[in-house]
């Protein structure tokens, strides 16, 4: 098992190298000259030339890439064109906010999605089944930004019960330890902050979690229906086991395998969704940072963010594969 994990980690190296090339060349392809965006429209041609020379933009691509990779390996993602801030530091500062939001959304999606899927399957063709699956069909096709804006309109503007932006209200104090606010508020026993953080998480979490929730629910349902027909479920029934043992222990553990694959994939997509959600809800995370960087053609920031997101993505995949082993003993990793 440990060997497998080490081997998988080693296999990440070429993947990440590929990602770095992609991140690097993507920014070369996007129209817009960073030198011009730094100096503004009124800059003279000679000023531009000089800056391009300074930034190494006139060097061959391969040299530029080598320089890029060299500094990345030292954990240096360069500095922002706009603010001159250290990108690594900025990203690390914003990462907890994004991870907190995506984890919240994903846990919501997994818990509600699986529960709804299981109940829908066990009570196939019941009103719950019809209602939840129609809802799931809706959920899959809802655009995040539309859902987000509608929720803001309803819960913040009309009803005024949920905050529309940010992670924490201005008048609430919180001592940060990990920068995961929910965790920090628990660690410091600050229940006022906990409630405040939670209400801030709710709308962006739902906006972000709706699509994966819907997909997980549908997948769980169809997988459960398949599993409930299997011989070992008949055996479990013939043994006189209680219904909940049959559904949750015997059926769900088998039905969960395809759902796990979906969860892994959705996690990756969630990172993309986070850009939209964070923008709508002014969530101070990596997604919003990237969005602003793209708008401002702050290309070192975009590059850095792509790398970070790619690393998270492959790590999530790795974790999914390891969990597979836990849930399916028939898989051997040799």
């Amino acid at each position: 098992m440990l060997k497998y994990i080490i081997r998988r980690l080693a296999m990440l190296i070429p993947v990440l190298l590929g990602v770095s090339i992609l991140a690097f060349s993507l920014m070369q392809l996007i129209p817009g000259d960073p030198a011009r965006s730094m100096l503004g429209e009124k800059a003279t041609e000679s000023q531009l030339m000089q800056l391009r020379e300074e930034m190494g933009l006139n060097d061959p691509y391969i040299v530029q890439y080598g320089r890029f990779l060299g500094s990345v390996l030292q954990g240096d993602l360069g500095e922002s064109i706009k603010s001159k801030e250290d990108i690594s530091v900025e990203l690390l500062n914003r990462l907890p906010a994004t991870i907190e939001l995506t984890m919240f959304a994903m846990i919501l999606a997994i818990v509600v999605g699986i529960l709804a899927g299981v109940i829908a399957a066990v009570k196939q063709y019941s009103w719950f089944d019809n209602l939840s699956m129609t809802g799931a069909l809706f959920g899959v096709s809802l655009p995040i930004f539309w859902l987000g804006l509608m929720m803001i309109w309803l819960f913040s503007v009309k009803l005024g019960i949920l905050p529309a932006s940010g992670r924490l209200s201005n008048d609430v104090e919180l001592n940060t330890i990990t920068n995961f606010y929910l965790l920090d508020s628990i660690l410091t026993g600050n229940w006022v902050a906990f409630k405040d953080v939670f209400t801030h998480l709710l709308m962006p979490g739902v906006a972000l979690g709706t699509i994966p929730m819907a997909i997980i629910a549908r997948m769980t349902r169809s997988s459960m229906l398949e599993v409930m027909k299997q011989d070992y479920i008949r055996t479990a029934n013939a043994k006189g086991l209680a219904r909940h043992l049959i559904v949750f222990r015997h059926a769900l553990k088998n039905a969960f395998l395809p759902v796990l694959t979906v969860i892994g994939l959705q996690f990756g997509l969630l990172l993309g969704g986070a850009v939209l959600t964070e923008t709508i809800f002014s969530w101070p995370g990596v997604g919003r940072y990237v969005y602003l960087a793209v708008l401002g053609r702050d290309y070192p920031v975009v590059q850095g963010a792509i790398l970070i997101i790619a690393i998270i993505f492959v790590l999530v995949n790795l974790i999914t594969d390891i969990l597979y082993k836990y849930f399916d003993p028939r898989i051997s990793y040799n």
Partner: protein
Amino acid sequence: MKDETPILQVKQLHTHFFSKSGVVKAVDGVNFDIKPGETLGIVGESGSGKSITAMSIMRLIPSPPGKIVNGEVLFKGEDLLKKSEKQMRKIRGKEISMIFQDPMTSLNPVLTVEKQMIETILTHENMNKSQARERAVELMDLVGIPESRNRLKNYPHEFSGGMRQRVMIAMALACNPEVLIADEPTTALDVTIQAQILELLNKLQKELGMAIVMITHDLGVVAEVCDRVMVMYAGKPVEFTEANSLFANPKHPYTWGLMNSIPKITSKKEKLEAIEGAPPDLRALPQGCSFAPRCKHAMEQCLTIDPSITKVEESHHVRCLLYEETEKVIST
């Protein structure tokens, strides 16, 4: 000497499946009883209703579309068909348990054998986990699985087919059931393993005294383990007698067909294909005897008169017009 009061009596059992294309009368009037320590064989081709009979006794018919429309299943004198689902769960796996054809698919692939074994014990017996674990080791020893304590930690795919069936048997015997229903327990196994499993069942029955309902398509299995046999065709029993007299003196033309297709113990098992034609469509049974289209001895009246089960000798019953005639001849 065997106790003479039956532990299980099935009376006029009718289990039908309701589909859009019609009503499938999968089990249509089955009667039998079985005494403690006895082994009753139910023999027939697939689709004869033998497995549905077993599932009906356990009340495990998927409903819808299946429904037990009529009959009684008396277990120790109480009608199981009148029990609530909750009461049935107390009986399943404890007083009546079941083993199935394919031990690969019948065990849960993602749970250890230990987990699957002790959950049955914990469900039915007043034991804690470590007592249940000890009982599981005992059971593994009982069914002849070497290194029982270590093997408990394994998953089903880590066992061979024969060992897996032993695990199934151990699980079924966990709570000392009074009736064991074995649904084609050896069909999926190699010939040599088949013999071992049958021998094991014989031995366990002698030790534990449970009644066994042996469901099989294989008269070879019947010869090996059964005391009495019921031959089924198209949802109905067609011949019912002592195993000895079935082999010595088979009476129903369908049984004759089955006899001709007994696989030799030395040869690989084969399907019962010696009888020409296919089992009838249970949604549209022919008028008269259901077996008539395939019967080499069919007479004109077989196409119009549905024979009823008739006693032709002491404890030998047959559903065939050939014998209703002789009855009449005898009685006049």
